[in-house]
């Protein structure tokens, strides 16, 4: 019987000598017992939100928790109303989580756009290097001036 779960490093790649990519994270390596045990399984809030793997989620939830405690405590200290303090704390949680989440996601999106622009620039640099389209070409000082 074939022990498909026993061996499996990324040996599949050995069949294709042309292949350069090695999948390092939770793809095929999770099938190997030791590596699967070593990886984080991810903590899912309410069973749906994986705060460890979702970008900005962990920060948003932590900020929300802090905002919730701060808002609830401040309201309680000001009014001594317990139940309403919980309501205010919960509202603080929602608003702080949302605010932190969108702020982080917008910055994340800007970074991704910059990353793509840089990647495109690097790719074009390789293609255009040494040609007249190379943006790093310095103009020749001895060359005759252009038309007025």
């Amino acid at each position: 019987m074939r022990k498909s779960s026993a061996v499996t490093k990324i040996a599949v790649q050995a069949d294709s000598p042309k292949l350069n990519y090695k999948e390092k994270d939770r793809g095929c390596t999770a099938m190997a017992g030791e590596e699967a045990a070593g990886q984080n399984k991810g903590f899912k809030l309410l069973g749906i939100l994986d705060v460890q793997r979702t970008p900005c989620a962990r920060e948003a939830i932590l900020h929300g928790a802090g905002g919730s405690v701060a808002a609830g405590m401040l309201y309680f200290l000001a009014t001594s109303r317990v139940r309403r303090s919980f309501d205010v704390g919960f509202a603080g949680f929602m608003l702080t989580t949302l605010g932190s989440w969108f702020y982080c996601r917008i910055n994340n999106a800007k970074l991704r756009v910059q990353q793509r622009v840089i990647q495109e620039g690097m790719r074009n640099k390789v293609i255009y290097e040494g040609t007249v389209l190379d943006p790093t070409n310095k103009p020749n000082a001895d060359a005759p001036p252009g038309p007025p």
Partner: protein
Amino acid sequence: MAHPSQLGFQDAASPVMEELLHFHDHTLMIVFLISTLVLYIIVAMVTTKLTNKFILDSQEIEIIWTLLPAMILILIALPSLRILYLMDEINDPHLTIKAMGHQWYWSYEYTDYEDLGFDSYMVPTQDLNPGQFRLLETDHRMVIPVDSPIRVLVSADDVLHSWAVPSLGIKMDAVPGRLNQTAFITSRPGVFYGQCSEICGANHSFMPIVVEAVPLEHFENWSSLMLEDA
């Protein structure tokens, strides 16, 4: 490919799939917050001592629970529509491949320059080498150059099939007598697995799709070898 007991998406291998992952995270956070709100309201309702059997109407809360869901839906719909139109863009493909579904295998045709075509059958479990994936490996992979826009024309020879590769964010129905078009770019080299996604008979679960993205010179070598073998 997916790892055992995986529930979430696979890692993205194309820009469209990256956008889909980000949209999913965005929507999931909204869903999580709504679920938390509902849970809190349930606990508050169950534990309150306040009772008033004669409340008839309240304009303020009616306005809130009308406007708030509308704003949430707009917040979800706008990125959704953006991605919907993004997925329909076809930006000057470098290569066109025809993927034909049969019972029960896929065939691929690269006819842009030479007449290259081959069938792609699943490797039976007893023929797998150590390290290969059960029910996912094929004898011939669809090899493509990395970082190049690829157009795939999907059709079928007999019954309905569906050509799907989750990590590229692609699923396209293969309908007999119809050509469906999709396009993608792989951001990184690698091997990407998918399975037929439309019930097509006894061996519907046993006709996988394997896309292998390699650098251009390797793709050229591969296509030369395949043409020689043909």
